[in-house]
């Protein structure tokens, strides 16, 4: 007689994860998740020990955004799980599919304030797409299976599965059969009615001054080729959201660049003067619309998104098409007419005016180091091919302005939640997902200090990253707001930093300080050539400002521009404008 099939809940966790295609998890052990960790050793799972559970969730998120697969983070109950909250919320706001597995105290102890007990499903309820509390061994596999399905289907998002210690320890002889997930109330992929598709096609074909608003949904749906086809056939210029960067190559002749608060002024002007906005997988966030009352006043609006909850949330739209972007475009493309819109494209070129002249890249170099220089040089030296991760703030906007991404999934940044400390752990996840790609972290001196403990993770895992800290001695974006809107009262924004290069060396990594523009190239070169992760401490101008800027609540076209005289040095200087970084179709 053959031995009966028998598993512990802990074993089922790993067998289910392997069934979902998971081979790497980012985690931190602890009491309530101990049975799972013990069982892990018997399965082909790579475990990356993080230094803080926030790091585990950002790594899973970075893994997911770099690969398109679901990233997995593991933590124990109580503080382990609550440390995940920021990372889960980050993934929620940016529609990133991650699954978090947390241990929970034994089911008999739930509700008793037991050691390391927290109501984690309660805490994470509003910041997860869905979550599960599992107290029975036979519920583990179906809950995890369902969690992966929910995380990756429809509008992706984070799902948390909280598993009690006794459920992990218990044996079962019931072999789970995980078929098609049966969730009668869950409709991940709506389909727009034919009549709406017709109206959309008519609006597009009729429009004289259309603009495509390219969002993150293009990347999630994998609709990059179709969007390009649409734009090229109908000659529609494209504006990108921050998370839409990479959906259309930066060097594509119809790609105008980034829209919104720190977008290009001509992009915002094109949006304001458009007669049709075609919003693809974006959500009209307040950072891209400026004042809603004055937003694109003459434009009809078509909104295509997989999540109907986004329709008419911020901006009233004329046609709303709910569905997977790629599927919707497959229906739409055949009825889109080829058009020549050279007049409209020509007037957008006119909007550019002198903006390129004011651009810091084109200002003479008097030896001072600007973040724009650093990012431009990194872009140039990596051939624009690196995966770049960022935190939130000035460096993030400079990255979006000066690193020109031609590849999908090459910019990984915390958009919606704006999470400081995201970049370094997200880069770990990206590197694990795509080990053959060059990965750069671009972070500020503030954000870097929030999760810099993950340098130890990088050292332990022998991962090769390149880290550029844009170090200006301030929490720069907040300082910028204080400069503009709080009368330069710099409350709480000056920040002291350790010697980042020495710190990196203390982890066995490389470190270098860079203070002038002349040193940038050599330092970047040495960092790339080093087999270790190298941290470059770029000590840049302290009070530089991200231009242009739409003040909160202002009209999108009313941007604060870089004052002409702010550039150091002589405007008559003959130095060649750095045009290479900003291709000049626009």
């Amino acid at each position, binding site marked *: 007689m053959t031995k009966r099939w028998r598993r512990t809940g802990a074993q089922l966790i790993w067998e289910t994860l392997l069934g979902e295609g998971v081979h790497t998890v980012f985690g931190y052990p602890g009491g309530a998740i101990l049975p799972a960790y013990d069982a892990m050793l018997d399965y082909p799972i790579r475990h990356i020990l993080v230094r803080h559970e926030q790091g585990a969730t950002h790594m899973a998120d970075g893994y997911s955004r770099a690969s398109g697969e679901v990233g997995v983070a593991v933590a124990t109950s109580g503080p382990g799980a609550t440390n995940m909250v920021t990372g889960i919320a980050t993934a929620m706001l940016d529609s990133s599919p991650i699954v978090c597995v947390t241990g929970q105290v034994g089911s008999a102890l739930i509700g008793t304030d037991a050691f390391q007990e927290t109501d984690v499903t309660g805490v994470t309820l509003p910041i997860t797409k869905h979550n599960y509390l599992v107290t029975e061994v036979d519920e583990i596999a179906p809950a995890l299976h369902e969690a992966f399905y929910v995380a990756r289907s429809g509008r992706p998002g984070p799902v948390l599965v909280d598993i009690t210690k006794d459920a992990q320890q218990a044996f079962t002889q019931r072999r789970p*059969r995980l078929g098609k997930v049966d969730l*009668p109330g869950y409709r991940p992929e709506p389909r727009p009615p034919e009549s709406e598709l017709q109206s959309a096609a008519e609006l597009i074909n009729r429009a004289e001054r259309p603009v495509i608003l390219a969002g993150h949904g293009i990347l999630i749906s994998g609709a990059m080729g179709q969007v390009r086809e649409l734009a090229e056939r109908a000659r529609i210029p494209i504006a990108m959201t921050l998370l839409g960067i990479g959906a259309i190559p930066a060097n594509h002749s119809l790609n105008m660049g980034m829209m919104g608060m720190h977008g290009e002024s001509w992009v915002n002007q094109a949006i304001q003067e458009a007669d049709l906005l075609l919003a693809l997988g974006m959500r009209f966030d307040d950072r891209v619309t400026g004042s809603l009352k004055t937003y694109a006043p003459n434009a009809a609006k078509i909104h295509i998104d997989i999540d109907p909850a986004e329709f008419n949330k911020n901006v009233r739209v004329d046609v709303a098409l709910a569905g997977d972007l790629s599927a919707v475009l497959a229906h739409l493309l055949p009825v889109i007419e080829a058009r020549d819109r050279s007049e409209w494209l020509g007037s957008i070129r006119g909007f550019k005016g002198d903006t390129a002249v004011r651009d810091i890249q084109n200002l003479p170099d008097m030896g001072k180091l600007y973040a724009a220089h650093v990012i431009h040089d990194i872009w140039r030296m990596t051939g624009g091919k690196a995966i770049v991760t960022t935190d939130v703030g000035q460096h993030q906007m400079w990255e979006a302005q000066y690193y020109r991404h031609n590849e999908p999934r090459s910019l990984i940044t915390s958009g919606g939640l704006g999470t400081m400390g995201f970049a370094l752990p997200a880069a770990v996840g990206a590197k694990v997902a795509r080990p053959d790609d060059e990965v750069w972290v671009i972070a500020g001196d503030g954000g870097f200090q929030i999760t810099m403990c993950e340098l130890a993770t990088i050292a332990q895992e022998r991962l090769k990253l390149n880290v550029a800290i844009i170090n200006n001695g301030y929490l720069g974006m907040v300082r910028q707001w204080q400069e503009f809107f709080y009368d330069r009262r710099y409350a709480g924004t000056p920040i002291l930093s350790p010697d980042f290069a020495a710190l990196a060396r203390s982890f066995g990594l490389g470190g270098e300080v860079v203070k002038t523009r002349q040193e940038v190239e050599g330092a970047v070169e040495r960092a790339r050539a080093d087999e270790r992760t190298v941290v470059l401490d770029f000590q840049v101008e302290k009070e530089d400002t991200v231009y242009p800027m739409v003040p909160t609540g202002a009209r999108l076209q009313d941007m604060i521009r870089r004052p002409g005289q702010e550039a150091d040095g002589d405007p008559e200087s003959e130095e060649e404008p750095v045009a290479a970084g900003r291709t000049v179709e626009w």
Partner: protein
Amino acid sequence: MTPGPDGRIRPHIFVVWVEDLPGVLNRVTSLFRRRGFNIESLSVGPARAPGVSRMTIVVRTDATTARRMLVQLSRLVNVLRADDITNEPAIHHELAMFKIQATGEERTQVIQLAGATGARLVDIAPESVVLEATASPQKIDGLAEVLRPYGIVEQVRTGLVGMARGAASVMTDPDARKPPKRRRASSDESGGSHSV
């Protein structure tokens, strides 16, 4: 709360069909809590199909916000269907019980009042009576008003429940066609995409 673009704030009646699972009520009410709404009344009970609960939720808001709440509700994984029946022809009733401290002449008057208003006398004790009524919230309000002078010592109201008039309507149970299964390790099902 501040009114949305289309202005008028009034009670909106949501009917929500949900999977009868632990924590689902919390998920639903959390959407209202997040926006700082006070739920005026909430009633939950089993729907026609097994494993399905039907909620009636009354919240004061404007039409724009109500539409947003509806899509947010529909987005919850465990919500089978959500409708705003505020403008549907429907019967909206609640059940109320009032305990009146009354003896002698007053007691007779209360009992007569009950008869005149359609309330039922469900308990008589030496010093008190309990009346029960099922009616629209407005009628219940009216009944409470006339009983108040006699001294209401205790009252309970279930909150509104609603059902559309006529044979077919927006409120036909969504679950009838697709009863949700309790999602267990369904070892009796075959043909899974993968098994472990």
